[in-house]
């Protein structure tokens, strides 16, 4: 209580120090006046009485100081004084201040970002009540290896869980009366929300009691985010009927904000009971097929008295029963439990390892930054050794001086820390809303919370103390008489120190990063302009799934043809083609085994190759910009009544047909023995990803091998926006209930370039960090070297040394380290880019631009880092310097 009171008094006096001072002043004045009154009564004149009263009172300044101490305000007074002094000192050397703050901003910001991600994905429990009792049930090495009947058996027969829920992830077209859109849905068991103990935000959620066999629960629960963006927070949505893949479903309610399912990085739009799977997919059998392991994840809430080990044993006893009863359908492997949120061990392990590694790395960066700033600080302390010595000689205590130095370093680190924190919050917010693949609701929910703020502030304080400690020994050892007498010319070590090694390593790492990021950027630029085997510019992509839109297999080809004809009629459209799945579209293309025409035994081991396979319409080659080298493209007559034909690429021709010029007219065989005649030859291209080696590819006519998934390519030089609107309205006329996704092909390729872009960006960021570290490192060393040898430099100048010689003497050592480190880094960097070339297309280190760029970058870095110390060395005035000593 007492300490609390005194603390309150300190706080109050910190915020109103002048109040206390005024009050104290007035009280002392009142005292003296009263004393003077008494003295006046003894017969003294007023002015004489006042003079006597003041003398009797004693040393007013001394007592005032004591009063401050007694009232508990001393600490903050001193702090304020130190802060003011530090600010003045720091503002006087802006180069140092900016370097230090920027370095700390980067280093602490990096730590805050990495910790923010770690916190959100690994440390923070799932956003559901009592998340610590929730476990993902996995079978064997794969999380997603349960069939629905397996789940029902496990749920019924286990004795360890309060309840077990299951879900699968799928996509449907949602139609609320106007323009239907694709939604991602969790198809869940009825008890899903109850197992997680989730309460509705609006309306109600569905329960196990809503399920009464197949297609008995046509209900849908909206995620808060989807309700917010697509229903504009309309509370009247409850009870409304929407269509999912043309089947009516009733909206029951809205899930609470922040709940998007049990997989952190996958934001589901809606939740639907899995018993209605047949309506959503058109597949009658899969729900009851014990061999179809298509459940995405099984989540159980452990009973309070059961340990995870007991639960695993229990699950495996159920498993052995299942294996006995259904030996054919049940896979190998045993049941294990994992933490929910990151799709069990599948992502949990890698994510954890990756983030821990990153955390370690950023911690090292911060440590290196502290070491560099420490040496910068030591250089400044050396500069100020005369000032410190004078203060010591005048009776200031060493504690007081150290306290002042610490105030300075902590002030710097707090400013850097706050700046770093603000930057990291902005970055984390952007990261949270970022969706790297437009077609998939994949995101990284990493909004920062109090933990992140706390870590950033603690890191700032710790690093402030860390680099503030470096000059302490110097101050403690300082002998005021010696320094005042002799000046600051100490011996500057000639041998290789720990600090030198550290600096060379930093510079080398920085050079490696700069080299690799330049290689990556060049590769990325080249891959943007390379030949894909199609032309993404001036082409629009449209994708739709006709089966989920309710078309039966017989009706699909006719519908596709109607769509192509309708689009072709739009003014300004050059050509239209369809393909079952476009090249370079993640996650990858379809493939099929082929055999040479002479192969009799169609065993998979005898296959000639496994080329990429595309089912295309007659107009596809023209629309996609794929050049036809020989033969013909398909026509609408290449249908089921005509002989089987194909168009192949050059690689296919040379590898399987044995000849490029004579490819047209030759035959090859499919797995089922069908002979296919090659009618056309097209150029090679990229199919799976940009860095793949040249692959064979074959194209089949749409009418001979139908596909329900349809991607239409529309080539036109019209503006994409207007063209998109026109395409939508034309197709709406044919079928208003079809889901249409339309975007430019070049935008769609963003997903393909994602890995190389990511690699480039992260290398760039790391390179920036490395550069910053090297700058502070070299700056610190150069500044230290110059200030230690200022007197020597002065004498050299007085003796007539040239500027070049002075610079050489002052900066030779840090520059030698820079050259040594850069050379090592460049060599290592060139070696490292071999690895990089598997991620970034056409990344080659044998590129004069890259080599030149690295040299320029490292020289610039050296120039920036040594600029201030060099200026200082050159501006030494020997007269003043020698007089000072």
């Amino acid at each position, binding site marked *: 209580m*007492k300490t609390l*009171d*005194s603390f309150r*008094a300190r706080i109050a006096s910190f915020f109103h120090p002048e109040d206390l001072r005024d*009050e*104290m002043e*007035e*009280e*002392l004045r*009142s*005292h003296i*006046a*009263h*004393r003077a*009154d008494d003295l006046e009564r003894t017969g003294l004149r007023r002015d004489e009485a006042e003079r006597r009263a003041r003398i*009797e*009172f*004693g*040393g*007013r300044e*001394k*007592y005032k100081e*004591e*009063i401050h*101490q*007694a*009232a*508990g305000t001393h600490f903050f007074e001193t702090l304020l004084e130190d802060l003011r002094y530090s600010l003045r000192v720091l503002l006087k050397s802006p180069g140092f201040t900016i370097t230090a703050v920027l370095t700390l901003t980067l280093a602490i910001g990096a730590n805050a970002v990495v910790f923010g991600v770690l916190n959100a994905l690994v440390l923070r429990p799932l956003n559901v009540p009592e998340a610590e009792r929730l476990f993902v049930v996995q079978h064997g090495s794969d999380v997603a290896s349960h069939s629905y009947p397996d789940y029902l058996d496990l749920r019924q027969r286990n004795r360890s869980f309060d309840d077990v829920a299951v879900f699968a992830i799928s996509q449907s077209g949602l139609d609320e009366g106007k323009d239907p859109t694709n939604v991602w849905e969790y198809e869940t068991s009825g008890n899903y929300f109850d197992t997680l103990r989730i309460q509705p935000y609006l309306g109600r959620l569905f329960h196990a009691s809503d399920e009464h066999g197949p297609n008995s629960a046509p209900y849908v629960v909206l995620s808060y985010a989807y309700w917010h963006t697509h229903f504009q927070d309309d509370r009247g949505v409850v009870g409304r009927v929407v269509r999912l893949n043309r089947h009516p479903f009733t909206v029951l309610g809205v899930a609470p904000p922040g709940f998007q399912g049990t997989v952190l990085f996958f934001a589901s739009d809606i939740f639907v009971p899995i018993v209605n799977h047949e309506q959503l997919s058109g597949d009658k059998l899969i729900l009851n097929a014990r061999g179809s392991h298509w459940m995405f994840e099984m989540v159980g809430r452990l009973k309070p008295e059961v340990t995870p080990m007991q639960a695993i044993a229990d699950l495996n006893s159920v498993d052995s029963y299942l294996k006995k009863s259904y030996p054919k359908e049940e896979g190998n492997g045993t049941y294990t439990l994992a933490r929910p949120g990151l799709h069990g061990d599948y992502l949990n392990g890698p994510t954890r390892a990756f983030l821990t590694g990153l955390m370690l790395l950023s911690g090292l960066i911060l440590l290196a930054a502290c070491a560099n700033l420490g040496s910068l600080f030591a250089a400044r302390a050396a500069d100020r050794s005369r000032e410190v010595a004078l203060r010591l000689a005048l009776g200031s205590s060493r504690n007081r001086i150290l306290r002042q130095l610490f105030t300075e370093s902590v002030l710097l680190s707090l400013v850097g820390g706050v700046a770093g924190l603000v930057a990291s919050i902005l970055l984390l917010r952007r990261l949270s809303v970022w969706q790297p693949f437009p077609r998939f609701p994949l995101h990284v929910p990493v909004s920062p919370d109090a933990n992140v703020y706390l870590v950033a502030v603690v890191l700032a304080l710790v690093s402030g103390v860390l680099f503030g400690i470096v000059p302490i020994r110097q101050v403690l050892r300082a002998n005021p008489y010696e320094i005042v007498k002799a000046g600051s010319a100490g011996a500057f070590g000639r041998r290789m120190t720990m600090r030198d090694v550290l600096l060379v390593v930093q510079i080398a790492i920085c050079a490696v990063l700069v080299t690799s990021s330049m290689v990556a950027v060049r590769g990325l630029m080249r891959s943007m302009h390379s030949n894909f085997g199609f032309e993404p510019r001036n082409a629009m992509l449209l994708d739709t799934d006709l089966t989920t839109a309710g078309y039966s297999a017989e009706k699909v080809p006719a519908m596709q043809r109607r769509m192509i004809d309708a689009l072709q009629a739009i003014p300004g459209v050059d050509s239209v083609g369809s393909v079952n799945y476009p090249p370079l579209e993640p996650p990858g293309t379809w493939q099929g085994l082929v055999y040479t025409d002479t192969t009799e035994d169609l065993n998979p081991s005898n296959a000639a190759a496994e080329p990429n396979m595309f089912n295309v319409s007659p107009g596809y080659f023209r629309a996609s910009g794929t050049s036809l080298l020989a033969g013909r493209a398909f026509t609408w007559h290449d249908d089921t009544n005509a002989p089987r034909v194909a168009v192949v690429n050059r690689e296919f021709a040379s590898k399987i047909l044995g000849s490029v010029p004579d490819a047209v007219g030759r035959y090859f065989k499919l797995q089922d023995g069908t002979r296919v005649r090659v009618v056309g030859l097209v150029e090679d291209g990229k199919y799976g990803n940009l860095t793949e080696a040249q692959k064979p590819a074959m194209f089949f006519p749409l009418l001979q091998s139908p596909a329900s998934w349809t991607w239409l390519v529309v080539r036109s030089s019209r503006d994409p926006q207007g063209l998109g609107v026109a395409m939508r309205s034309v197709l709406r006329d044919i079928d208003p209930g079809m889901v249409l996704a339309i975007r430019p092909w070049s935008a769609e390729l963003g997903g393909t370039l994602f890995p190389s872009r990511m690699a480039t960006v992260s290398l760039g960021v790391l390179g920036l960090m490395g550069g910053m570290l090297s700058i502070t490192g070299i700056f610190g060393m150069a500044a230290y070297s110059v200030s230690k040898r200022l007197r020597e430099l002065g004498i050299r100048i007085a003796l007539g040394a040239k500027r070049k010689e002075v610079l050489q003497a002052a900066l030779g050592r840090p520059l030698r380290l820079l050259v040594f480190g850069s050379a090592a880094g460049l060599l290592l960097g060139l070696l490292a880019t071999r690895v990089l070339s598997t991620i970034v297309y056409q990344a080659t280190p044998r590129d004069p631009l890259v080599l030149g760029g690295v040299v320029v970058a490292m020289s610039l870095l050296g120039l920036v880092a040594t600029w201030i110390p060099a200026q200082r060395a050159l501006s030494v005035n020997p007269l003043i310097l020698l007089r000072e000593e």
Partner: protein
Amino acid sequence: MTDQAQLLPGTLDLLILRAVSLGPLHGYGILLRIGQISDNALLIEQGALYPGLFRLVRQGLLKASWGTSENNRRAKFYELTVAGRKRLSEETASWNRLATAIAAALSQQPEEA
């Protein structure tokens, strides 16, 4: 003047509490009161009173408020809080014990010279 005694460390606070226990006083009044109740036997430099007063306020033993003095001047008056009154009686008792013990020790005649 020379027959005035130096204060022992820590005793000023006790004297202040005692002086104020008889009724609210301003700083100068406290000084006069101490002189009065100690027959002017103690030497206290006037300014030395104030750090003690601020310390006692901070410890919650005294509370202070501004008022008008008998000389018709603005002055800050101090009075005991409940905690202050309790502290005064504790300190008085312990001082008395100490004084008795020391007095006894000093008045003891050595048995052998």
